[in-house]
């Protein structure tokens, strides 16, 4: 092989690798690995359309490439005949795509009705409320209010009834199903049945202002025992004030005096409604709608500089000493 050919082969191989590398790995928000009935429906429809599209693509591109090669200008080529059209051809290539479309339209419309019909009677209801920039999840049947991490049992249908406190958001946990907008003054609904336990990432999918990209969520699908345990934990009242001691007791004092109570709810301590309910904040894996790990360090970072972590955040930084901060973090981390 001469140098030029080697370069060409090298370029081709590199391009192939770059292209194929997109196929490897299972990304946390890939719609191509669905884990619910809704996600499966979309995936099947997607693959149906991909195969039809691939067939059409190959046929049309072949015709185009053959025409370009076969009829390229060559010395001595005869002048082309002036053909103006063919009624038969026009009719056939109008009908052909129409027939292909029938094979695409029927499964499409079936999927639309299957994924957006009346939810089953036994579906568990979760109210989803979008906020700039975090998610509130309420379980009216269970009396639970939490934020940014939604727990649902595997194998059982769940219906999300959604609205927004401020601007339009969109609920999107890609592996579990399609997007559905979360709008002020309107109620929208999405129903799905998760296949199996796991933690699935999601995020707001409608541009909603400065920290739209920081509005993430987790859907934690558990087996029925795990879900029951989570419900029991959420139902447990926080430890009584007089049982607290040391840093934790001091942290509660900080929570009361530094303004936290104005916006946050902790059962028996505060009843603010502007920010997330913190009654069981210690049990979550992340804070600040999924942008920081829920460790002492992560929480301290968040409380110290909410605007730095999440531009535009409605939570202001509260002036406090490092001692107060670590006490507050210790208190919040204890709220399991």
């Amino acid at each position, binding site marked *: 092989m001469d140098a030029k050919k080697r370069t060409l082969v090298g370029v081709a191989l590199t391009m192939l690798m770059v292209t194929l590398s997109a196929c490897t790995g299972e990304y946390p928000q890939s719609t191509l690995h669905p884990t619910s009935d809704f996600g499966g429906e979309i995936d099947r429809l997607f693959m149906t359309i991909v195969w039809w599209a691939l067939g059409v693509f190959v046929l*049309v591109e072949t*015709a*185009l490439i053959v*025409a*370009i090669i076969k*009829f*390229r*200008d060559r010395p001595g*080529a*005869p*002048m*082309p*005949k*002036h*053909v*103006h*059209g*063919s009624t038969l*051809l*026009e009719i056939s*290539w*109008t009908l052909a*795509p*129409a027939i292909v*479309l029938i094979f*695409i*339209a029927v499964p*499409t*419309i079936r999927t*639309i*009705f299957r994924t*957006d*019909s009346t939810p089953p009677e036994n579906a568990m209801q979760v109210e989803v409320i979008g906020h*700039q920039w975090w998610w509130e999840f309420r379980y009216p049947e269970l009396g639970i209010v939490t934020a940014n991490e939604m727990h649902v049992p595997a194998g059982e249908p769940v219906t999300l009834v959604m609205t927004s406190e*401020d*601007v*339009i958001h*969109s609920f999107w946990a890609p592996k579990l199903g*399609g*997007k*559905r*907008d979360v*709008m*002020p*003054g*309107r109620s*929208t*609904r*999405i129903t799905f049945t998760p296949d199996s336990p796991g933690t699935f990432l999601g995020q707001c*999918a*409608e*541009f*909603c*202002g*400065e*920290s*739209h*990209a920081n509005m993430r969520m987790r859907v934690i699908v558990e087996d029925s025992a795990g879900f029951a345990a989570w419900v029991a934990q959420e139902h447990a009242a926080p430890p009584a004030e007089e049982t607290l001691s040391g840093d934790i007791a001091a942290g509660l004092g900080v929570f009361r005096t530094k303004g936290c109570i104005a916006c946050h709810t902790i059962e028996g301590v505060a009843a603010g409604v502007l920010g997330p309910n913190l009654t069981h904040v210690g049990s979550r894996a992340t804070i600040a709608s999924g942008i920081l790990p829920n460790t002492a360090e992560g929480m301290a970072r968040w409380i110290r500089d909410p605007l730095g972590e999440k*531009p*535009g955040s409605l939570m202001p930084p509260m002036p406090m000493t490092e001692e107060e901060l670590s006490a507050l973090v210790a208190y919040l981390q204890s709220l399991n």
Partner: protein
Amino acid sequence: MATNLDQHAATTATGPSGIWSWLTTTDHKRIGILYGVSAFAFFLLGGLEALVMRLQLSAAGNDVVTAEFYNELFTMHGTTMVFLAVMPLSAAFFNFVVPLQIGARDVAFPRLNAFSYWVFLLGGLFMNASFLIGAAPNAGWFGYANLTSAQYSPGLHVDFWVIGLQVLGIASIAAGINFIVTIVNLRAPGMRLMRMPVFTWMTLVTQFIVVTAFPVITVALVFLLFDRTFGTNFYSVSAGGDVLLWQHLFWLFGHPEVYILILPAMGIISEVVPTFSRKPLFGYAVVVYSGLLIAILGWGVWAHHMFQVGLGPIADSVFAASTMLIAIPTGVKIFNWIATMWGGRLGRALRGDACLPAGRPATDGHVLRRGTLPLRTGGRRRAGLVRGDLLLVAQGVRAPAQ
């Protein structure tokens, strides 16, 4: 007649140069060039904005720009590419080519044409001037209510966007009327509608979409401006307004806008392919009708931008089906282009057999020149159309060998 034409040519195509002559020109070719140059400049600006966005995204947690500026970048990138790059690029071709293709000396209202260009340019500059005071539009190129309300978008950001788009709308509607009048009234004698070049056809169709779709966004923007400035409640949920009203109005404009952008390009392809295949366009009438059909169907698909809104399975199905229907005329165009190439001689089309006025040296800027624009119609019959000094050569007619 000939004298007038010579004078006209003398002051335009070969007329005085210098900045003043360009600022005051009403010549369709010069205005076309101005549109093209401006569109390219805005295209570079929009590309630069995309480059910075990609730089920010090149690594997780990057700090190239602030969150706020990033939002301004993608808002202005989208708005710039749609309204300040692709639309004026089409306008460059409308201006330069359509009068030539129909054998008109200029557009029907040359001064209105200049007005359209300058209003477009000022609208684009006005919107971009917002960067200078750090208040560039930041609510997305789609500007969904109620994020655009005074409550959730304080400052001048959205006001620049609203007023800028309104100004651009004035330019587009004025140009749309101008070209409709031009194409309907100024065609050379004998050029019936179904003998018009396909590019002129697609221009006509596009301009009808412009003058019908832009009023819709105008209304939506007036509502928004009034909400922000005078305290009306069109999109205000707390006062009984509806955030979906914006989405319906925006996409009722926005989807026809897609065809405002694509139909001229399809028209260009329908000229280039036959010319460089040395064959007339295959299925001229079908290509024209499919363009018309795309424009008409384009009005019935807007809610496919709103599938995630939750309009319900019936509405979603109807709009899914209407959207699929557009694939048919679009496919038909592509099949006709390939059939045009089939049996042709693809390559250097205009070597010696350009469309030339019979027996006349083609030197005037208005007269078709050898090896420049491929100007042909796709009509069934071959016909040379003469008007004044202009000779418009319909398909298949060639100058005798020289």
